[in-house]
């Protein structure tokens, strides 16, 4: 219930901020009766009303959720998972697809409870295999990064 209220409050706040930003949207010249401002403002007003209802009466809309509550070890795990994803995004072009995805897959497999050796094998297979599958067979270009010297 507290989280629901917290979310509704931040949604309301976001609506207000975005509303202020949207207020400044004016077309320098216009052929139309409706500019770029009216529609987002209308949405924001509706959204703010919805958030307000959820803030005042959160009980009306929340049933017992079957999602398990967040515990401390869960939060740590989720944080590690997010960290790995961010690392994947950050290194994707810099290191190149193959090394990045090998490291990422190793981390993820360990996080989800795989043992070291099978995880390492899986990571290698995924990194190299997916590169060839997508870059060579399916023609989705992927960055080679540090391995670009090896390209024939």
């Amino acid at each position, binding site marked *: 219930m507290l*989280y629901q209220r917290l*979310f509704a409050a931040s*949604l309301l706040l976001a609506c207000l901020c*975005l509303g202020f*930003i*949207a207020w400044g*949207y004016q*077309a320098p010249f*216009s052929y*139309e*009766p*409706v500019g*770029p401002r009216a*529609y*987002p403002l209308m*949405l*924001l007003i*509706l*959204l703010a009303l*919805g*958030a307000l*209802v*959820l803030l005042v009466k959160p009980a*009306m*809309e*929340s*049933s017992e*959720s079957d*999602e*398990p509550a967040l515990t401390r070890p*869960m939060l740590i*795990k*989720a944080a590690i*998972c997010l960290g790995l*994803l*961010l690392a*994947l*995004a*950050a290194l*994707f*072009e810099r290191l190149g697809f193959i090394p990045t*995805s090998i490291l*990422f*897959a190793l981390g*993820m*497999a*360990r*996080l*989800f*409870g*795989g043992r070291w050796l099978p995880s390492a094998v*899986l*990571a290698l297979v*995924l990194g190299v295999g*997916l590169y060839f599958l*997508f870059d060579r067979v*399916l023609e*989705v*270009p*992927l960055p080679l990064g540090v391995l670009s010297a090896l390209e024939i």
Partner: protein
Amino acid sequence: MDTLSYLGQGFDVALSPNNLVTALAGTTIGTIVGLLPGLGPINGVALLIPVAFALGLPPETALILLASVYLGCEYGGRISSILLNIPGEASAVMTTLDGHPLAKQGKGGIALSISAWSSFIGGLIATIGVTIFAPLLAKWAVSFGPAEYFMLMVFAIVCLAGMAGDKPIKTAVAVLIGLMLACVGIDANSGVYRFTFGSLGLADGIQFVVLVLGLFSVSEILMLLERTHQGQVAVKASGRMLFNLKEGAFVLATNLRSGVLGFIFGVLPGAGATLASAVSYMSEKRLAGHKGRFGDGDLRGLAAPETANSASACGSMIPMLTLGIPGSGTTAVMLGALTLYNITPGPLLFQHQPDIVWGLIASLFVANIILIVMNIPMIKVFTRILSVPNWTLVPAIAIITSIGVYAVHATTFDLFLMIAIGLFGYLLRKLDFPLSALLLGFILGHMMESNLRRALSISNGDLGILFSSPITIGLWVLVAAMVALPFWRRYRTKRSAALASA
């Protein structure tokens, strides 16, 4: 007769060797994707869009691929519901009620083949429905102007919230968030940058592949972290693999009724497969009365939701093709794919590109037949896939998702955006907001705004145009009824609770 000749043309397209192979590949991929935890039809379809694009598939082939993946996913989801008692998605929940008890009684093979057969009949009924009704609706929809379209979209959204049952406000909020996200980027009419915060990556808006994969794949990966149970033990599908004639005849009436029901629910915007399977299960249960053994393994209890499920999956193609308004999360993704190909679905699609429309409709027939032929002998292989542990699956899903997102623009900005959206989606799921509503809002966003502004340009800013034609007034009435529905429902449960306690 026109329809029949067009349909023949469609079969020419669908049965060309290339498209046949595509349909075969699509149904296989779809079945596997539907089986795996953490992947549903929405991610399955979204992941294949960049691939279809990169392979340079012509639009009708790409559409056939996506449609067959969609149908395959609906098929695959059923295997994990019956053997594991784990519904892969919301629409499969009803399947577990009677499917899993049957598997525990050692009738797993019969249950799987009955459900495959039911899906086939459902798909067939709905595809016939699509063939008959889609051209009629398209002909009628040609006369729609921007004001009518805008009202239709308002109706679709209100429908979604009104039908959502216990949380209409959360659904509405989710749709509105989706509509807001669609506003990000350069405004097509005036060239003003909206909500980009000076970022170049956001200038042409949030790519819908990024949004879909963030919302559904990344958040699902975070969800899977919590479900620690690994290597689930599947009930062995043993004994007779095929149902016999008597069992087939026993469920035939159920099949036919649920197929029609599912089709109708599929056509209605926002109702979709979840509602269709639930309603058909309940009505069959009521029809069977005390003689039925619903809940401990009645074949009809399995046949009803399965038929309705796949009938609504096919039926939801109607609003997508004729009006350009998706009825479910998955058709929303397909609509997004079409716009990537610069094809605007709508009534004119039937006139300008009949190959695409009728090729798709014919390929629905073909995919349904492939699925039933493939599924019955392949069930053993598919059940083995169920025992793949999460630690191998999740890294693969995550990397393929990243490839899919990277392939759109080849920028890492999109990867970061996907992670941010994924985190947001995870929070929304934790708080019980329906993500498919958000997706529908996002897809409808552009169309809704441009139609509203076009309508108001026509009337020179007079809001009266939204009430000016009989169609818009009719839609207003429907919107009002849909808004009133949750209130009425709440009032009724309150009153019956009061009566029960008195």
